[in-house]
């Protein structure tokens, strides 16, 4: 079955780490540059993220993600480089087009921030099984009901897409036009979506019953079939990251006091 999760098991070090370590990494990668106030820190984190992704053999999967945002970023660079208010120092002249230093620097900051956010999230998303992450949260006291909602989405949505395809086929076999120009598609939308919604509602009721008889609402403490996802390195990694964060804060505070 097709999953909407981007995760892939590669047996890499990132796969073996606890999800918490990776979440902490995201927090560090986003907060530390702001605390220290230097773009260089962001660049370092981008390099670390790329290194980690490369090492986990999932760098390739970031290409489509970067492709979409890359297009937006390119327009940012062009617009800011050409037209930003306060552009005075010409840096690059291509015929009649002049790129200015101030605008490009501003655009560079945005690009660095976006890349940093995207890549650090990729470190988590591409290398963590969603159910492992939620299960670790549930172990730490997160509500199992919400946990169920988050995990089941990954399977229920592809399931609904499949139902949608079945219904489309069924309606088509009865002579309904589902392909063609925009108007045809809009007209086909209602007869397609209403059976999907209705069947989903019925399925949800039946699934609720089935969950109920399997103790979904049991009040006793849950146990887990799978062991908690963590490695011996996790503790050290988490401590190191927290120390780095504290060091960043101290450095900034001391810098201000001087």
């Amino acid at each position, binding site marked *: *079955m097709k999953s909407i999760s981007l995760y892939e098991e590669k047996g890499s070090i990132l796969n073996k780490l606890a999800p918490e370590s990776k979440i902490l990494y995201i927090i560090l990668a986003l907060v530390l540059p702001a605390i220290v106030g230097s773009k260089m820190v962001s660049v370092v984190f981008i390099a670390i993220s790329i290194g980690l992704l490369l090492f986990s053999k999932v760098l390739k999967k970031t290409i489509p993600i970067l492709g979409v945002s890359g297009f937006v970023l390119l327009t940012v660079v062009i617009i800011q480089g050409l037209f930003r208010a306060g552009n005075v120092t010409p840096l690059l002249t291509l015929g009649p087009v002049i790129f200015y230093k101030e605008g490009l620097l501003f655009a560079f900051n945005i690009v660095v921030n976006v890349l940093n956010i995207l890549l650090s999230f990729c470190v988590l998303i591409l290398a963590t099984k969603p159910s492992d992450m939620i299960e670790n949260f549930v172990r730490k006291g997160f509500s199992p009901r919400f946990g169920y909602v988050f995990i089941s989405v990954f399977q229920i949505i592809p*399931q609904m897409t499949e139902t949608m395809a079945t219904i489309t086929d069924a309606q088509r076999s009865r002579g309904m036009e589902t392909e063609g120009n925009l108007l045809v598609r809009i007209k086909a939308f209602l007869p397609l979506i209403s059976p999907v919604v209705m069947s989903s509602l019925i399925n949800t009721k039946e699934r609720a*019953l089935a969950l109920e*008889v399997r103790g979904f609402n049991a009040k006793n403490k849950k146990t887990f079939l799978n062991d908690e996802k963590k490695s011996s390195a996790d503790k050290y990694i988490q401590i190191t990251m927290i120390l780095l964060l504290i060091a960043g804060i101290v450095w900034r505070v001391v810098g201000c006091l001087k």
Partner: protein
Amino acid sequence: MSKIVVENLKYKYPATDFLALDGISFSAKAGEFIGIIGKNGSGKSTLCQAIAGLVPNFYKGSYGGKVMVDDIEVKNVDISDLCEKVGTVFQNPFNQVTGSKLTVYEEISFGLENLGIPKEEMIQRIDEAMELLDITKYKDRNPFDLSGGQMQRMAIASIIAMQPEVIVLDEPTSQLDPQGREEVYQAVQKLSKKGITIFMVEHNMEKIASYSDRVLIIDDGKQIAYDTPQKIFSRDDLDEYGIEAPAFTKICRELGKKNPVTGCYPVTLEEANDLLKKDKGEM
């Protein structure tokens, strides 16, 4: 002692104006295999859900009479507590997949995790249940990738692993091929021999006739009869309730061959065979 006692059970779904169940009373002993038959919409599924406590605790609605499992009245306990005693398998295998687990093995663990069973015991129970329903070979597959029959067997295994004392199966074999159906019946019969009380809704009368200890006929929410399969299928008014007796019974009825001891028509191949052989010998 009776494991399950149902006393004058009446039930009306919310926002309807007819009784889905109307005055059902019966009892079943531990280890009994009870078949529930009747036409579509007669209240079979509602009765199943009443035994599991889903009626009235999940649906609400008006409820009268009582259902006792051991000495617990199901109305007064949470479904999540009752599910340790009464397991339920539904008709549609697809909607019984939780959707939160990625493999068959983990899927079966869902109920056990909720009940707080320690890991070692969980593994042992899952292995046992998978063995019993012959799905060990699918253990690492995604639950949604199974066929209907495999999925249903997984659903049954998930319930069996919770080790309830009563199992209610609501048309569990409607998605299965004849061989799969036979396998499920064999597995369920094994459980029944272990002392688990079984309630089975089924449209296949040959299966009901050969496996049930007693059969309950429901029509329009009312209890028509509760007796041994031989007596049930020897009734003359089965047509009225949309029930067709097993082929062996029909043949013997046409031939006028009754079992001289019980005064009933035979309901299984073996019984019919014995009776006809005996007749031949006498001739």
